[in-house]
């Protein structure tokens, strides 16, 4: 795209790319990705763009939530931060882009108002809060913060009260959550997926077992909220529709797998840490512990673009509100245990300018699977 970060060309095979089972033969170029200035000191847990402005909130294990402003050239500047008492596990923006919420291992959710820069605690759980989302629930006066925690509960918070508006018990610890429009999807341990219709937020609209046989790592809703994508620790991603009549369209695919050069018999399977949907095209990205990310088109069932390894596991990704920037956070995600947490592990956030053809669905016949 011209203008942003200069022009990024999608050169083929600029680096050796570890193509997974994707059928695409195009390799993207990450050489022009720009790193965020002064990233957190420790591993990053989550990054989110503001829905209204060019700001990026970063939650990190160093207990801080930082907010950066990104300008057109990709340069970033730290604008604000707030601290928790424990590692921050997730971050969310309010729909008006004025408030940033952080949740973490201190079992609390805190909010910072970007205008007044005041912070306060707004939620509490019995166990670390793993995910948060801000949703609009019909009938409530303002945005509602939804928090999912390892205490197996999902709570709705109206920011003015200190007790939750509603609480839902889940089958197991909440591992992932995403929402869009009226759809809220909660992924828990034991591979449950709870689908909540926000017009009836107190109960599960549907509960399904994840089609993937391994632990759910992340969920992400389609931009039209008819379904969601699930990523697991076993290098597999599933596309799942909410409504029964669309169940035949469900499918899953393998990704983020590599064959080590010296041994052809085994394949390393990495977990899919993050899935993000492009706000405009409906295509999505997956990012894994292998340090690679790919863009996929779920309707054509093919991969649009693959990118070479970025130098470390990617723990979180997000598209900005227009979809022209794709940010990915690289830091050690402990997938290999604590022994691998060495000094060489980098912690960085990269901003990738999304070229027009990178994330757009290709106008071709859907590939038969």
């Amino acid at each position: 795209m011209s203008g942003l970060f200069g022009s990024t060309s999608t050169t083929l095979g600029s680096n050796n790319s570890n193509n997974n089972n994707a059928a695409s033969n195009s390799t993207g170029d990450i050489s022009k990705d720009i790193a965020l200035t002064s990233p957190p000191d420790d591993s990053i847990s989550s990054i989110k763009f503001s829905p209204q402005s060019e700001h990026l909130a970063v939650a990190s294990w160093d207990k801080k939530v930082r907010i950066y402003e990104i300008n057109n050239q990709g340069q970033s500047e730290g604008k604000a931060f707030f601290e928790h008492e424990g590692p921050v596990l997730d971050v969310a923006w309010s729909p008006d882009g004025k408030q940033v919420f952080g949740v973490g291992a201190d079992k609390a959710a805190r909010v910072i108002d970007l205008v007044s820069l005041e912070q306060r605690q707004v939620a509490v759980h019995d166990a670390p809060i793993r995910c948060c989302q801000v949703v609009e629930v019909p009938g409530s006066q303002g945005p509602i913060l939804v928090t999912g925690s390892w205490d197996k509960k999902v709570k709705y918070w109206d920011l003015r009260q200190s007790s939750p508006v509603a609480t839902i018990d889940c089958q197991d610890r909440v591992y992932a959550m995403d929402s869009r429009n009226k759809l809220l999807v909660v992924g828990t341990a034991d591979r449950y997926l709870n689908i909540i219709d926000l017009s009836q937020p107190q109960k599960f609209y549907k509960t399904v077992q994840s089609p993937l046989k391994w632990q759910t790592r992340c969920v992400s809703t389609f931009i039209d909220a008819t379904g969601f994508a699930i990523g697991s620790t076993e290098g597999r991603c599933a596309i799942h529709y909410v409504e029964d009549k669309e169940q035949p369209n469900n499918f899953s695919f393998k990704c983020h797998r590599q064959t080590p050069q010296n041994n052809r018999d085994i394949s390393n399977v990495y977990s899919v840490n993050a899935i993000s949907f492009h706000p405009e095209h409906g295509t999505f990205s997956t990012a894994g512990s292998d340090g690679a990310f790919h863009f996929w088109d779920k309707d054509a069932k093919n991969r649009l673009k693959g990118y070479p390894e970025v130098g470390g596991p990617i723990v979180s990704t997000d598209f900005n509100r227009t979809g022209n920037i794709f940010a990915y956070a690289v830091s050690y995600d402990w997938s290999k245990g604590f022994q691998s947490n060495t000094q060489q592990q980098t912690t960085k956030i990269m901003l990738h300018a999304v070229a027009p053809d990178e994330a757009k669905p290709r106008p071709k016949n859907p590939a038969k699977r």
Partner: protein
Amino acid sequence: MGKKKRSQPDLEEILQRPWCYYCERDFDDLKILINHQKAKHFKCDRCGRRLNTAGGLSVHMTQVHKESLTTIENALPNRAGLEVEIFGMEGIPEDVVIAHRQRVATQFVQAGNQPMNHNVNPATAGINSAKKPRLEAGSDLKKRLAEHKAKKAAVEEAAATDTASPVVDTPVGQPQSYPPPVFTPPQLLPGFAGPPGPTGLMNMGGPAFNGYAPPYGQAPTPFQAPSFTSPPVPFGQQPFEAPPFQVPQNAYAPPSQYQTGLPNIPSRPFGANLPDALHQVSSAPPPSMLQTPRPNSLPSAPGLPQRPSFGAPSVNAFQLQQMHQGHIPNSSLPYADQPKPTNGIPALASNVIPATVSQPPQPSVQLQTSTEIPKEEAKPAESSIEKRSKKDKDKDIKLVYSDNDISPEEKLSKLARYAFHPVRQEAATAGA
């Protein structure tokens, strides 16, 4: 031959023919059989080297490629193990030999005693009732298959497909025997109908089939019966100039496939004619395959034991062929459930018939329609089968993060440096 078209050679002759343990195809000659085994079953898929036995192949894989061999290529699911050491006809367990003989005999009886009638079985007429067991059509199929094979032989190029086609059709009567282009019912593996083998001729080549399988999966499939039974009746629309296509090698099937695969054909005695015929035909085959009214694509192989002829099991004709090829379709179950071939014949026949689309012996028109359907069915089946077979060959998966019960974040949060102090459960234990 005289009056009696030699569509059904004597039983003894059929029984004497060497046949391949792994894929149940029979051949004219021991040499051909050995060649077939070397090319189809004892061939290294990494380097293409042909070994002599399964044990040899295993050693080769271990020494040269540092991989271990687990299964035999292009073998029937229940014959794909490495335990038995087969070379030509040696090493076949006695019970398997007996079972084979019984199968052949049953097939022969079924096929041999029926007059060749071109008419499609009423039961199977024009319907791709893959699931409908059509026992009665067995003999018809055989005949049709034989006819078809003859036609196919004429049409198809010799195509490499394994010459295996032997026997299978024999009961059906080699094409040659029938004057009319009756397609001998594919007695060939009824089951095979599944494999799409486009050409419908089951690629005797077996392995090769995978390629084309589909379209004909249903109807034409008869040819699929790669295994011995009968080389799928060659589509050979052409009059059976070519000697019975026992070899049917399904030359059609992707001609390319066969071509490579059909080493046997040339060697086959009657193959001599066939190859020529086939070759000439070869160009046509693919199209002709569709066109040619495959005579009972159903492999009439009576003896198609092993052929998972399970009528309806999830395996359609295409899949059957695939299975024959050695690809286990998703529903390997069919095989699993298959009773020993001996009683499978009727089932086989039935399967085959449905699959092959009880095509009337009529020419192409019918074939076309029927093949169309099988093709579509075959395709999904094929893809699913292939997928399955690919999965079987997948490498071992090594999960980088293998703890399914605890998320990485939980582990991290328990570490001392990250632990939330007020609630300090586990101190400083190494995470993950």
